[in-house]
């Protein structure tokens, strides 16, 4: 049982009594923080998974997990690098699947991200509102002819011209939008992303 109120006047109950100690305590608690949406430097399989599940996950995403150890992802000021790092951060999105998300769910995420599409893409297998570079953005995946194509709608990321993405076996384009912002469309190297890219670019409007 705790002695409630026993130490109300004790210096140990609050900062102020020992500057050196308090300074050390504050510095120790303020660990470095990874950038939003980027994988942590020492990323490991989730601790709470059972051994069997962890093993199967490791087999399934082995290549991706290895990529997390790549020093290029630890910090970056490069938009294309951050896009691929973000994709790797959500490896479950990069599956070839016939499952599609409900239209209502897709529309809701786009609305929350401040975007709308005049024509919805077919076969959206994954959608999520994600923190990315300090903003909440729509992240979705379209199942294209050869596999998943990732789309990030980036109203706060301005690029002057098209930017090529070529990282870790992914290729794609970051396309400037006429009304500001940009979109990133990225797939595996053998995927033709042009159809998805052009369809999204033509159909996208920011909710201004």
């Amino acid at each position, binding site marked *: *049982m*705790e*002695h*409630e*109120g*026993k*130490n*109300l006047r*004790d210096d*140990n*109950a*609050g*900062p102020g009594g*020992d500057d050196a*100690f*308090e300074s*050390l*305590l*504050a*510095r*120790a*608690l*303020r*660990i*470095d*923080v*990874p950038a*939003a949406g980027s994988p*942590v430097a*020492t*990323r*490991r399989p*989730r*601790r*709470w*998974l*059972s051994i069997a599940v962890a093993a199967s996950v490791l087999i399934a995403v082995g290549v991706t997990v290895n990529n997390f150890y790549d020093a290029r992802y630890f910090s970056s000021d490069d938009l294309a690098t951050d896009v691929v790092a973000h994709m790797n951060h959500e490896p479950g999105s990069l599956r070839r699947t016939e499952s599609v998300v409900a239209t209502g769910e897709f529309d809701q995420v786009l*609305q*929350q*991200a*401040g975007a709308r599409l005049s024509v919805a893409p077919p076969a959206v297998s994954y959608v999520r*509102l*994600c*923190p990315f570079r*300090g*903003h*909440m953005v729509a992240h979705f995946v379209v199942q294209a002819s050869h596999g998943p194509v990732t789309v990030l709608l980036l109203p*706060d990321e301005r690029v002057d011209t098209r930017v090529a993405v070529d990282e870790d076996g992914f290729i794609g384009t970051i396309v400037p939008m006429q009304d500001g912002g940009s979109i990133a469309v990225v797939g595996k190297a053998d995927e033709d992303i042009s159809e998805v890219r052009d369809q999204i670019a033509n159909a996208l409007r*920011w*909710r*201004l």
Partner: protein
Amino acid sequence: MTAAKSELELRREFNDLSLRLRPDLYRYAFWLGRDRQLAEDVVQEALLRGWKAFGNLEDASSAKAWLISIVRREFARTFERKRLETVDFKDFEEQLSSAEDDPRLDEMRHAIFELDDDYREPLALQVLMGHTAREIAQLMELSEGAVLTRLHRARARLKQALGMAQVADDSEH
């Protein structure tokens, strides 16, 4: 103002808020679970939940405390849902860059790691978040006196671990 503009304004407000608070929310979550991956997941999920409810937040000045409470709930939810293993200090140590210029920092982090959860959390809330004992008490559903006691014991144990002070009246009952 159209509904669409209102939505955009809300989104920008929340973006700004999450950008500003995310580092300390992450640190708080980290010290709750002592695991970077867990902290990342908890904060991401908490921010998503926060965004979904942000439009209903009546008092903007309470946004910080509100988000902290969401992180705390999300951590508890994760803890209940998953079978979290005991955190090993070796794993913990690997997640923190060694402070070569100040070995005392590593010692302090080790000592914080070893604190009971009941002591580590109020300490993190006070030092990282600037919470008062009363605010911690409200969040943790404790009396203010109990919070002060835990803060006292937390500091006393850290000082003891670091050889910085006498052992205070720290008896357990």
